């Protein structure tokens, strides 16, 4: 059986070499039975299908996956450059209204009464006097037109304004050497930010969207908007804020989503 001749190559010696080891090897590989191989492949395939339904949420596997997710938190904190700004966009690229995101559907939003609403403060803060909506709406505003990126994979450009979180923390005398800022929301949602992200120049406590007060489904009267985190980290309908050094698991991190969720 004549097969094609080999190509000429400068790295190939002209005289050839001892081929006997090849013949020994041939005997070995001839023993590999196609039927067994196929059986093995099918078993492997069956195992991977098993993974699809149950293996990933058994306790042992979950503890390993969650340990790696915490490692990824630390890696992301290292990758985070506190001075790196997210790209900003022009007013005509802004999507109106913003796209809704929460752990329930938009029809189930329970509007917050702005008159009765207060922002409670706790933890490592000098002045813990609660803030009314009126007081917060009078604070100097910063506007950011940034891309919202959801963990699911969708995105849109939004135009948000409100007081800079760094500025607000300074006003209330928060200890910015603390590790975390924890948020509690009117709908029971909880979220925590690392201090570096809280102090980022594109992190604001937003009160307006497209220069109009934020409407009910999007977090009225007060929500967080940061350009350097996935959408779900931007707590809406905030009712309380705590500056703390102890890690508080959040609504989504308890369910296995990565906590840092940095962009």
């Amino acid at each position, binding site marked *: *059986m*004549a*097969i*094609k*001749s*080999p*190509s000429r*190559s400068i*790295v*190939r*010696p*002209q*005289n*050839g*070499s*001892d081929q006997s*080891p*090849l013949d*020994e*090897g041939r005997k*070995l*590989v*001839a023993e*590999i039975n*196609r039927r067994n*191989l*196929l059986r093995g*492949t099918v078993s492997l395939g069956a195992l*991977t*299908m098993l*993974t*699809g*339904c149950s293996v*990933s*949420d058994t306790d042992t596997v979950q503890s*390993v*996956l*969650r340990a*790696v*997710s915490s490692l990824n938190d630390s890696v*992301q904190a290292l*990758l985070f*450059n506190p001075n*790196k700004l*997210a*790209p900003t966009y022009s007013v005509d690229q802004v999507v109106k209204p913003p796209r809704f995101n929460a752990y329930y559907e938009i029809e189930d939003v329970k509007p917050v009464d702005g008159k009765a609403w207060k922002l409670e403060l706790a933890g490592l803060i000098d002045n813990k006097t609660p803030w009314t909506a009126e007081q917060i709406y009078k604070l100097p505003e910063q506007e950011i037109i940034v*891309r919202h*990126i959801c*963990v*699911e*994979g969708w995105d849109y450009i939004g135009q948000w304004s409100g007081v800079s979180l760094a500025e607000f923390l300074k006003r209330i005398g928060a200890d910015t050497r603390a590790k975390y800022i924890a948020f509690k929301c009117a709908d029971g949602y909880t979220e925590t930010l690392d201090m570096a992200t809280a102090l980022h120049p594109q992190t604001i406590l937003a009160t307006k969207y497209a220069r109009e007060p934020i409407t009910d489904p999007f977090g009225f009267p007060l929500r967080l908007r940061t*350009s*350097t985190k996935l959408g779900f980290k931007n707590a809406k309908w905030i009712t309380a804020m705590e500056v703390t050094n102890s890690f508080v698991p959040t609504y*989504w991190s308890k*369910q*296995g*989503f*990565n906590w840092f969720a*940095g*962009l």
Partner: protein
Amino acid sequence: MTDTLTVKSTRRHRKLHPAAVRTMHWINAVAMIMLIGSGWKIYNDEVLFGWLHFPDWMTFGHWAQHGLQIHFFAMWLLAINGLCYLIYGFFTGRFRRKLLPISPREIIADVRDALSFKLAHDDITHYNAVQKTLYVGIMLIIAVQVLSGLAIWKPVQFQELLSLFYGFQGGRLAHFIGMTAIVGFLVIPVALALLVPKTIGAMVTGGPDVPDAPDAHPVAAQ
């Protein structure tokens, strides 16, 4: 041309696939399958194409968060293993020995042989030109896949990289196309390897001994 990782002996023979290569091959296979199956889960949460949802039975992870956990676990396997493989391939000369040179003339000749069912399979120690092209190609595709993955994982920190993919959705699309290419590579040559099963056997056992010096291809296999 000497392999620095091979113990120098008077025989000057070593396995076609050294243990290191076999180990890295199977770690890579596991990492790839985990990344693909969990990637499909993540994709399903916000599809790029309305007509394409991956059925649940072929995705990894119960809910989206489990898909994400598996994806960001397997990325470390792929990255660390891939880096070891590249270092190994360059420093031992395996890439140069096995994958170079690739000549367009040879590729055309091999494709013609393959289409007329005359392509040589007798000597599995020699990669034909189509194989060489596919192996080099898949390595480049995986490298681009790592880059598009990093870009959509950190679209702010790596925004310069993301701009090469035309933004966030462009990056997602590039990552999807890369996945498709990798799955295509897995399906076609794996099917071919099943037709010539000794190639898979060799990736488990190490295969036949080969001379330490670059092998001379017999003029015509008998």
